[in-house]
């Protein structure tokens, strides 16, 4: 038995290979091709700065994305797991190293103060509204899911806190969905309050009387939420639909995984540490087994 480095590498490669081969096959969240088999209709290909093991969020994009969320999406969608303080935490859109405690960050305080939060008066016990603080969660537009559905043609707008990681394709899927609205092909009957979107998973077979194969995609109850100049960006970026879609997709990605940057940075340190440890362990192994014939 000769035990050399090649063999250990081979063993590691087998392990890695097994896992990597299994990963995409079994329910992976593939980055390139979101769900909905609508290959070829992808509006614009979007590369996000946060993709890949070294990717980081583009702070300006997160700030713009927050504005789109706040002024457009939050009219229908809740985001109840995110708090104003998160906006000023490390990795967040408004993080400022001057304020170690995000609750002191003046930008965050001002954004929170913009909203009215339901509370109980501490002396009378009456329900009241008060100005938001950084400790508050983002307010929800509807009191409950039924009310939300009632105002949206029967479909509940999903909570956006985990939306990016709850869809295969993540931010790319959201971007494609927002950009993917188009005129239904002739022969496709779209019901009232429904919108054809080739990116939305579904089966439109029973509404199809046209020629050729059934079109890909499905009917979504959300009307196209974006339009050119729907928001006015503070950094004077031109607010095209594509820009808004990319920015809000990035913001949603951050919202569903706010510690992603810290995670990747820690990861590199851990990998370096383990690599050094592996080298030392291997050297000890060689030293200890030096005089053993095996």
């Amino acid at each position, binding site marked *: 038995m000769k035990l050399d480095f090649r063999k250990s590498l081979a063993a590691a490669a087998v392990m890695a290979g097994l896992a990597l081969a299994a990963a995409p096959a079994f329910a992976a969240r593939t980055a390139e091709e979101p769900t909905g088999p609508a290959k070829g209709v992808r509006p614009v290909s979007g590369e996000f700065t946060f993709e890949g093991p070294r990717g980081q969020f583009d702070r300006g994009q997160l700030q713009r994305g927050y504005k789109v969320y706040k002024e457009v999406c939050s009219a229908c969608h809740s985001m109840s797991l995110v708090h104003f303080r998160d906006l000023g935490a490390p990795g967040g859109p408004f993080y400022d190293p001057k304020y170690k405690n995000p609750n002191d960050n003046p930008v965050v305080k001002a954004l929170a103060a913009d909203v009215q939060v339901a509370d109980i008066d501490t002396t009378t016990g009456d329900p009241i509204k008060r100005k938001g603080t950084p400790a508050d969660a983002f307010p929800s537009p509807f009191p409950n899911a039924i009310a939300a559905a009632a105002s949206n043609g029967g479909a509940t707008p999903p909570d956006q806190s985990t939306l990016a990681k709850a869809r295969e394709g993540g931010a790319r899927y959201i971007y494609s969905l927002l950009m993917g609205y188009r005129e239904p092909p002739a022969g496709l009957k779209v019901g009232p309050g429904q919108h054809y979107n080739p990116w939305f998973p579904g089966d439109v077979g029973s509404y199809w009387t046209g020629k050729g194969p059934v079109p890909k995609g499905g009917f979504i109850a959300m009307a196209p939420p974006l339009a050119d100049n729907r928001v006015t960006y503070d950094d004077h970026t031109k607010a095209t639909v594509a820009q808004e879609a990319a920015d809000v997709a990035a913001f949603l990605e951050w919202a569903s995984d706010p510690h992603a940057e810290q995670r990747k940075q820690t990861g590199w340190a851990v990998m370096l540490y383990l690599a050094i440890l592996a080298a030392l362990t291997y050297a000890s192994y060689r030293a200890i087994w030096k005089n*053993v014939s095996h």
Partner: protein
Amino acid sequence: MSDHESTYVPKTGIERWLDERLPIIRFGVDYATIPTPRNLNYWWTFGGILALCLVIQIVTGIVLAMHYTASADHAFDSVERIMRDVNWGWAIRYVHANGASMFFLAVYIHMARGLYYGSYKAPREMIWLLGCVIFLLMMMTAFMGYVLPWGQMSFHGAVVITNLLGAIPVVGPGILTWIQGGFAVDEPTLKRFFSLHYLLPFVIFGVVFLHLWALHQSSQNNPVGVLIPKERRKQDTLPFHPYFTVKDGFALVLFLMLFSVFVFFMPNALGHADNYIPANPLQTPPHIVPEWYLLPFYAMLRGIPDKFGGVVVMFASIGLLFALPWLDTSKVRSMRFRPAMRWFFIILLVVYFFLGWCGAHLPDEPVIPGVDGPDLFDGNLNSYLWLTRFLTAYYFGYFLVITPWMGLRETPLPVPEYVSSPVLSHDEKNG
């Protein structure tokens, strides 16, 4: 190596005092210096890796349980709070969630090692049986753990799997209600799954102890597969420490690197996106799939047209592992000396992998898209349904036909008498 002589000599007065009353240090030292076959290869490092996996799951699990709320209304949000608001909570949760996958990766390799080198044969049947018990307990633990975050897959997975019990004739419906704690998967189901998910790892810990005790008793197998007689011990074994602690240690660090790639750079790659949608009993996801490590069994289950039949086949597929020591008629342990059997074994691994592949697809999906094959009974031949059935047939055939038959029919290569006898030069090439 039950007759391994103790080499421990207590040096201080306190140690002597303790040694007469509770020889725990002697026990540890003896275990650490246990004579170990010198020819063990890297496939033997996965036992140590598994021990670490169990410890990692228990430690991270205990911390998660400090912050987790086992209630249908709060479970999902409490897991998200762990990831968002608990210091390093994202790391703890991702280590625990990916740790389950790493645990299964290691246990599958560990079991494949046992199959290939015949570690289940006399005198090691008990080690193997206890290992199968651990595997079963792991599957139960992981299944119940996956229910805890109470996402869409958690909930509907729990519905599908518990409902299988309802398919048992006569007693099924009663058992189903008893297990679910009501007439549907709900609050009581979640609470008992949490309780059991906390308990079972400690049961596993106990069985691991027995597994190692049995190992100690019947000695370790080795790549050549021959027993090491007492008089050959000097030539053929090395003390476990430091020789194998350092070798296991090296493999362990490589394993941790793979683990870290998942935890830090693709923490959700092995999970299912739908599980980040809070559980909604009224909305069934279009495609319910278990975690990757349970997919082969899920495939076998769905391959059988009758629900109860599927349950029987699924449990039988694990039952075969228990029966294997008595199904194998070959006296030769290591497949190094069984060239024909080695091929059947490699095919088994491929079959098992593709069973998992089938489990991830809908049964009526075509395997080769765009090809319309002929129909056979209840499905198209070009469908995952029929692929699953062929693969399942091989899986069962391997244990029930090939293994007993080959042992009687094959002519094995000459087996060396000792681990380090001259024939060994042949083995150097085969690792």
